[in-house]
């Protein structure tokens, strides 16, 4: 049984109340098609459980396989530094087919973030170290591919359709 080795901290990207009885952590890659498929499912799961669920997203880009994944993750971290992580996160998954520098700049503009600043951050790889830390923490926790979910610290193995996640979360909350 693989366990989450890196506890949730305020540095994480968190939706929900820290006192929520169930904590769902996703390790994801913005260019991974399976993560793209999981994206609306997670939204439905969040709506379904409401205040009972806290959701955390961590980066796990497979850069060699997905050449746009790292840049997208860095853009999300840039947005996070300006308090707009989730808007960028949603924008990236909702436009996954168009991933690339143009989209990152366009999303930044839509979120009223500085386009020159995000350009600099991407060029200087300003957020690369944080993303690598997420990635390595994932590796040590048994993240072998994406998306990987942890429910209250235990890795969720198997399918991640809405019904599967709901059932696993219900079981964890008993």
């Amino acid at each position: 049984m693989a366990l989450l080795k890196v506890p949730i901290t305020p540095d994480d990207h968190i939706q929900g109340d820290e006192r929520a009885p169930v904590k769902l952590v996703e390790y994801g890659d913005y260019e991974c098609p399976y993560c793209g498929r999981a994206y609306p499912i997670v939204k439905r799961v969040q709506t379904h459980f409401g205040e009972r669920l806290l959701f955390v997203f961590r980066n796990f880009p497979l850069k060699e396989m997905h050449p746009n994944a790292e840049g997208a993750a860095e853009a999300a971290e840039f947005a996070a530094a300006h308090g707009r992580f989730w808007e960028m996160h949603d924008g990236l998954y909702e436009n996954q087919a168009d991933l690339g520098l143009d989209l990152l700049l366009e999303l930044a503009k839509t979120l009223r973030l500085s386009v020159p600043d995000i350009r600099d951050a991407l060029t200087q790889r300003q957020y690369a170290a944080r993303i690598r830390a997420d990635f390595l923490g994932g590796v040590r926790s048994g993240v072998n591919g994406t998306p990987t979910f942890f429910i209250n610290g235990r890795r969720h193995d198997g399918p991640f359709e809405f019904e599967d996640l709901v059932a696993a979360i219900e079981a964890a909350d008993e």
Partner: protein
Amino acid sequence: MSNILGPGTPAPDFALHVTPDQKLSLGELRGKPVILAFYPADWSPVCGDQMALYNEVLSEFKKHGAELLGISVDGVWCHDEFAKVRHLHFPLLADFEPKGEIARKYGAYRHDDGFCERALFVIDKSGTIRWSYCSPVAVNPGADGILQALEELPK
């Protein structure tokens, strides 16, 4: 599942093709830790994920001075294309002729299937196996066990 060689066993030497005109032997890597990752087949989905993961973790392996070698019964041209398409930055060895000979020596050959187990070995710098793990064929074993074994190697 096969009985793979365990810790304390001297790692059987080999010399296998890594490119059509180049061979690599385990002996050549003496002095460095070696990670041997046997896997069933180049293009099967789980393998792809496993090798893609190792590709990304490679710099962590290198921090321990370790060399990673992938190994399967696929031929050298198949490996070549697989490595190219997936941008793999570590060698893939062809245990192709006699088929699976090295995998058999490590106890990592599936006789009924005719391909390798998904088996991992961490070999220390003097050529002794220090850790090994055989994963169910359909399960990606990840990199955590390898990293832990490298950390526990005597300096």
